[in-house]
């Protein structure tokens, strides 16, 4: 199992029956592939739908039914269309239970930077700032480091997406829960020691007496 699949399988366990969830483009979107069949979750896409699902069959593309990355999707029975105001009213108004997003940096305050690298890329924030500010539970799914540099940092050096503290960070090494005191190491990946996580992390981690190995959604 590669790192990204491990992360997605761990995040999948965070989605609860009946949740309204928004998965970011890329790694976060793959979380839907690993949901246990018993868990029914409604997926929102901020371009305007509740009840999106994967395209059931190549050749069935509808040019008017796409995800927030512009790719063709399907829709479950009971799906509904939303204009952008309603879509973001759901997000900002606290009606969205969970969002899973990628990250560039998370710091000791639990704040996230994930939308721009000044001077290098200016993609725009899209819906990320609204999602992080307004969703009930914000989960960051990202690799622990990039080019050997920890993405869990003392303080974000990249522009923040929101000042809101995220609720959970899942990487291929660890599950980390930011709280008032700092970043709590809740779980470690299979076969990874606490020492290895600490060594790979720039930000200060709070280590509880026991740090269990993370469970993942079964293959």
């Amino acid at each position: 199992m590669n790192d990204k699949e491990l992360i997605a399988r761990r995040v999948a366990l965070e989605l609860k029956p009946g949740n309204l969830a928004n998965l970011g483009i890329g790694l976060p979107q793959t979380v839907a592939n690993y949901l246990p069949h018993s868990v029914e979750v409604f997926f929102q896409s901020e371009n305007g739908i509740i009840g999106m699902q994967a395209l059931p069959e190549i050749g069935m593309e509808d040019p008017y039914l796409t995800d927030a990355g512009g790719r063709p999707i399907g829709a479950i029975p009971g799906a509904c269309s939303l204009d952008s105001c309603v879509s973001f009213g759901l997000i900002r108004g606290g009606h969205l239970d969970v969002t899973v997003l990628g990250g560039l940096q998370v710091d000791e305050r639990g704040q996230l930077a994930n939308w721009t690298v000044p001077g290098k890329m200016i993609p725009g924030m899209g819906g990320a700032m609204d999602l992080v500010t307004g969703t009930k539970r914000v989960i960051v799914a990202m690799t622990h480091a990039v080019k050997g540099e920890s993405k869990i940092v003392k303080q974000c050096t990249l522009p923040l997406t929101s000042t809101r503290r995220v609720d959970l960070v899942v990487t291929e090494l660890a599950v980390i829960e930011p709280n008032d005191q700092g970043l709590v190491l809740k779980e470690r990946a299979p076969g990874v020691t606490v020492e290895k996580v600490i060594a790979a992390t720039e930000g200060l981690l709070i280590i509880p007496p026991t740090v269990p190995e993370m469970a993942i959604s079964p293959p």
Partner: protein
Amino acid sequence: MHKAIALVDAVQKIPDGASVMIGGFLGVGSPHRVIAELVRQGRKGLTVIANDTARPGFGIGLLITAKAVRKVVVSHIGTNPETQRQIMAKELEAELCPQGTLAERIRAAGYGLGGVLTPTGLGTTVAEGKRTIKVDGQDFLLEPPLKADFALIGAKRCDYQGNLDYALTARNFNPVMAMAGTTVIVEPAEIVPTGVIPPDDVVTPHVLVDHIIEMDRSHE
């Protein structure tokens, strides 16, 4: 009341330097014929208010590549490297706005409101130069309304009066932009007799629509 108009004539109403809201999300739900005609007529200096600039050669990306745009107010340009290149080369001015805030700023203008109080963007670069207002102990960012000379709308069906409905994720910014443009031009996928769209299914009421682009009959 004649609302039907040829594509060429509708686009001629939009002068160089106009501000235009363009519906669509990565081109899904955009008025593609209107966009292509703006390029064909060589329009310049436009201010485009839209969710994104689609991709090079597609949707609003056609206007960017043609250098028809002076300024964009958008939430996302990650899918269009040419937009990013023009911004970094200072050939194009850009105002990046969180997607939900963009929708609400447009709504504020169209609904006669003086602005939006939102928590989105507080403590980030988006808040720079803007007022923060406290309501019941909580901080909000004051975001100004956003209106435009023209709203260019893509719809699914349009009846003879101009009532509109939309298809799935092609709805997006179209209904709210139809409220906020001084002149509203709609490019429907289909024109249907009045009454075919039941009252409960009308999303954009006909009174907002000024011009309905005639169907493309070039294939006949």
